[in-house]
């Protein structure tokens, strides 16, 4: 087939693809400026005019293509088949939100508990070398962090934190897509 991508100056000062520009014009997707330019070109350039009618004919023919119909029993067959099935629950409801919030609340309470316990161990009246109310030398951190259970707990918190971050970013992305 001849000139599928027909790059030609055609006196319009541009070297754009005629067909592509004309398709956009036919589809009504050209900008106002582009529309005016193309309309001028259609009046002045024979090549543009001919190409436009050629493409318009294809466009109109494509529009006239017919839909195919399935057999008359089609809907009945589908309805008979779906009678055997149930609608699967929505993907997002596979995990109950209440459970997630429950787990979250449990760990928050646990953290708060540890903090209260930690601060409870501090002798607020003790005088140290620094002006801080807490004598950090007296707090035995190894007691808290060398424990296997505490490490597991921290790890779970990190995972939960990442899950929450992922959820937040996903909802933000969805919001942005909707806005766009």
């Amino acid at each position, binding site marked *: *087939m001849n000139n*599928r991508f027909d790059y030609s100056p055609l006196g319009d000062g541009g070297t754009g693809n005629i*067909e*592509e520009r004309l*398709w*956009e014009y036919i589809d009504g*997707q050209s900008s106002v400026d582009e529309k005016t330019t193309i309309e001028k070109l259609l009046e002045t350039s024979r090549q543009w005019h001919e190409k436009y009618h*050629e*493409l318009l*004919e*294809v*466009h109109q*023919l*494509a*529009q*006239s*293509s*017919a*839909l*195919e*119909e*399935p*057999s008359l029993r*089609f*809907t009945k*067959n*589908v*309805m008979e*088949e*779906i*009678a055997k*099935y*149930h*609608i*699967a*629950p*929505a*993907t997002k*409801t596979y995990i109950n939100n209440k459970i997630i919030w429950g787990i979250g609340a449990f760990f928050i309470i646990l953290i708060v508990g540890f903090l209260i316990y930690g601060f409870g161990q501090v002798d607020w009246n003790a005088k140290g070398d620094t002006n801080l109310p807490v004598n950090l030398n007296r707090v035995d951190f190894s007691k808290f962090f060398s424990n296997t259970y505490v490490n597991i707990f921290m790890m779970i918190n990190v995972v939960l934190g990442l899950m929450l971050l992922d959820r937040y970013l996903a909802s933000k992305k*969805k919001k942005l897509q*909707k806005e766009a």
Partner: protein
Amino acid sequence: MSTGPSDTEIISQVLSGDHNAYAILVERYKAYVFTLTLRFTKSREDAEEVSQDIFIKAYRSLADFRGASKFSTWLYTIVNTTCITFLRKKRLEVHSLDEERTFEVADSYDSGFSANQVEQKSRINMVNRAISLLNTDDAEIITLFYKNEQSLEEIGQILGLEPNTAKVRLHRARTRLKEKMEKYFAEEVKDL
């Protein structure tokens, strides 16, 4: 596209237990789905079977439709993935665009017309036959744009493409459709 209750209303009815309401959706979209499927399968029997599967899949996943897009866009996404899976399974013979014998092969395709209709030099007949000569990607995008009333953004969503890429693909598909018409239906086009 339709009169009567909206797609969303029907879906709500189905989800709340009125399963028979799904028949309205099937009636509303069966021709669109069947036409699109036929572009892939090239056989009415296969298209009928695959279309049924598509509606069953859509029914089973109906709770996942959240109304972020049109129901038709969501449904055509299922059409696209199901047809691709079907083609992979069937390993259908894919005819090269440049094959000279494409026309003869296309003549033997069961494109949904009776023998008498095929003989008619009707515009619809000729366009449908020209589309059936295209490869599945081109035929699909042309059908989605012209028959299934999908915008370029929606087509992009269905095919997993950026809207601009969908636009370029549509332009190329139309160019190839024009080529097919000029090559194989020059007389018919002249008569129109």
